[in-house]
């Protein structure tokens, strides 16, 4: 199947439609929530939560003996939440830095989870195979009810974001100040963190423990590059996340069923790289272009200002001067002079130049202009 075939099939084929919808919704909700993790500089949080969820999956299986996704994910949710609140507790009680606490919980829970998984695999029980799909995810196992669950959680998440938008925003920007205004910052924090845990747990089936945090970070990091408004950033992150899901699924389905989770993450990474290079205000490319353009403008202005100085010593502003005079001015190049001619600031006759009226007034206003444009 190639890409074209995929897109013609996606609306008819039940499995393909389910998977595509699932990954799109997952990408949207993790992108949205990821914005908050990124802005709080808690990049490791997603990693810690997803790794902390692993023992929950194993324990849920050990207790119930079923491989029902919902039950296993419930286990993941519980251990993910426990891990998250331990992190908070450690930071609060011990004065360890938060990334230390995150790293600690991450490796502790993941290690324990792996231990349990190997233990389960050694059991003489035919039913045990396939739990390790939660490590890297397996989108193909998504069924309609999974997608419904994701959709409901996403809807709930959007609702909560809309309701508590102002509280989330102010907490992200200035937590101490938020406290002095009388808001219970702990409540706001727990609310947002719980949703992050929920979204991550929902993604485990599709993307897996190991790569899940990328779903949280990549769309948000990409979105940050394109806007200076929090609302737009969250919206864009949702869009980027959803597109990563759709394209990732499309590519993996059309290329001999490459593992979907990693492909989705790779697509999200492409969004990040593209954004870091090409975003107009923060991107590397435009920064460089702006830098070069600014330097050119500055050179032009310097030359013009210098000519203005010389011209001022004469009664007639259009008094012609030889080009040689400009030679002892270091900023002078033929190129800049040509550009000034193009702009109509300077007239060139042979190797004599003179300022035009326009050039003269522009030069006289150069400094005022610069202070104005700083406003």
């Amino acid at each position, binding site marked *: 199947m190639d890409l074209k075939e995929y897109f013609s099939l996606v609306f008819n084929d039940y499995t393909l439609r389910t998977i595509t919808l699932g990954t799109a919704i997952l990408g949207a909700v993790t992108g949205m929530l990821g914005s908050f993790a990124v802005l709080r500089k808690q990049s490791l949080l997603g990693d810690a939560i997803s790794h902390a969820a692993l023992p929950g999956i194993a324990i849920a299986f050990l207790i119930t003996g079923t491989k029902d996704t919902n039950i296993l994910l419930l286990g993941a949710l519980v251990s993910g939440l426990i891990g998250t609140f331990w992190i908070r507790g450690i930071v609060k009680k011990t004065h360890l830095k938060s990334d230390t606490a995150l790293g600690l919980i991450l490796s502790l829970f993941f290690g324990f989870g792996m231990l349990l998984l190997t233990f389960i695999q050694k059991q003489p029980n035919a039913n045990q195979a396939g739990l390790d799909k939660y490590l890297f995810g397996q989108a193909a196992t998504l069924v309609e009810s999974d997608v419904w669950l994701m959709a409901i959680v996403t809807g709930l998440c959007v609702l909560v974001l809309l309701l508590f938008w*102002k509280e989330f925003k*102010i907490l992200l920007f*200035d937590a*101490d100040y938020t*406290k002095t205004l009388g808001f219970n910052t702990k409540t706001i924090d727990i609310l947002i963190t719980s949703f992050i845990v929920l979204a991550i747990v929902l993604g485990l089936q599709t993307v897996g423990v190991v790569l899940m945090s990328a779903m949280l970070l990549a769309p948000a990091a990409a979105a940050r590059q394109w806007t200076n408004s929090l609302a737009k950033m969250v919206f864009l992150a949702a869009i980027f996340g959803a597109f990563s899901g759709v394209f990732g699924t499309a590519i993996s389905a059309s290329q001999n069923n490459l593992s979907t989770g990693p492909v989705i993450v790779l697509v999200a990474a492409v969004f990040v790289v593209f954004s870091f290079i090409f975003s107009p205000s923060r991107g590397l490319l435009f920064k460089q272009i702006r830098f070069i353009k600014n330097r050119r403008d500055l050179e032009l202005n310097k030359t013009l200002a210098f000519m203005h100085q010389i011209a001022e010593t004469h009664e007639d502003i259009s008094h012609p001067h030889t080009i040689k005079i400009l030679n002892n001015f270091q900023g002078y190049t033929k190129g800049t002079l040509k550009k000034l001619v193009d702009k109509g600031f300077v007239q060139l006759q042979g190797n004599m130049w003179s300022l035009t009226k326009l050039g003269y007034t522009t030069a006289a206003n150069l400094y005022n202009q610069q202070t104005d444009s700083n406003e």
Partner: protein
Amino acid sequence: MEQKIAVKVDDLTVAYNYKPVLWDIDLEIPEGVLMAIVGPNGAGKSTLIKSILGILNPIAGSVSIYDKPYKKQRQLVAYVPQKGSVDWDFPTTALDVVMMGTYGSLGWIKRPGQKQKKAALEALEKVGMLPFKNRQISQLSGGQQQRIFLARALVQNASIYFMDEPFQGVDATTEIAIINILKELRKAGKTVIVVHHDLQTVPEYFDWVTFLNVKKIATGPVKDIFNDDNLTKTYGINYKVSIQE
């Protein structure tokens, strides 16, 4: 005539780890003063303000605002944090930050509307930042960011203002602009408490002063207690020369 006490701190002791950074502080701040808190780096000035405002939990002691616990009087108090305490690359505009000052009176869930926007614009005008209202905050200079924080506190329309180093990194013009606003607040009967580092300007700007270095060294009118003795006790070196300059 007895002056009302705006802020009263009793036996306040605060520690981050084991060693207290504030030790048994008693403090009474009368209504309507413009007070400087002075002390060396690490003296606990920021910690004192944060404890009064309930951002930190003290080990012992209590704080009251106009004779009632702080929690009941929150809406009477506004706060200007140290500028470095937030990430200025946060995706938002100057106006939006100032609007945050209205969130407290709005309470949970309710969105700011026209009334709040108008108040925010007025505050921006007062600090001379109106032309920058739609600027992304990362594109403001340090002094402009400081003014935005001041405007955000002004919007709160409080009776008591706590400001942590509002003059940090601002130029002479901005400093004068800010001090004029503070003096205006005092004229309107508000109480203003400012963490201040420039000892030379204390007598000129403030009428009340508290010396702090882990313990409270002294507190009272500038003209009575702003002297060499207290400065030496607080900073541990002789300040006579620098003050008389």
